[in-house]
């Protein structure tokens, strides 16, 4: 599981602050850098864990057997998450 680089953390924090700033009553910026850094790293660790990767591979393979490579599967997750973010 990869450790998020400092530059990645900075970019993620900036993007979160911009997004949260659109509705501070719903998404206040009431955390500090170490807290959001830890939360982002935790999400990274969770997603990259063998268990989650195996579950993801399993559900995609069950829905569409033998169709998507691991790289395609990762891209499916990326674009699904982008779409979900737009819907929420």
């Amino acid at each position, binding site marked *: 599981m990869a450790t998020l680089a400092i530059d990645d953390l900075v970019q993620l924090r900036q993007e979160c602050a911009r997004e949260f700033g659109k509705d501070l009553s719903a998404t206040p910026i009431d955390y*500090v*850098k170490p807290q959001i850094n830890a939360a982002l790293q935790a999400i990274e660790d969770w997603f990259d864990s063998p268990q989650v990767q195996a579950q993801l591979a399993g559900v995609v393979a069950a829905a569409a057997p033998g169709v998507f490579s691991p790289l395609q599967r990762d891209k499916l997750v990326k674009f699904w998450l982008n779409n979900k973010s737009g819907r929420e």
Partner: protein
Amino acid sequence: MATHRIPILGWNTVPDTGGDVFFEPYTVKATNDLWAYLVAIFNDTSARDGMRGAFNIPKNYIGSANLIIVWTSTATSGDVEWDFDYRAVGGNDSESLDQGSAQESVNANDTAPSATDERMEISIALTDGNFAVDDLVQFELFRDGTDGGDDLAAAVQVHGLYFEYADA
């Protein structure tokens, strides 16, 4: 004796080239789109990002010099680390404007507003004897993201930067 504050941002104010200090209308960060004057944004980074300028010491300067930063943020937790480097250059044909170091470097830490966008003010003492009437003061104001004391996880906005001093 009276205390005065003069604004020190002006025509010659320029952010550094890193892209994380810049000017934008306050309405970009604010909720109410009413007060659209320019503010200086210092982003949340892991670097020491700055904004440069210069100003003149007034004719009635005696002492009690302070830097006053008026700022705010959408964040309500954490601290920001401010650094201020300057050199005061005086005289006529006697002192170089192109010196290689700051005369003084000061810093201070301030805490996020208790509610978003509340006016924050911090005063940083400067050495009175470094300034003389008519000096040109070259300066750079930094947000120091390399300092562990800077843990505010959002941009900070500078709404005003002042040189405070006392007259006779």
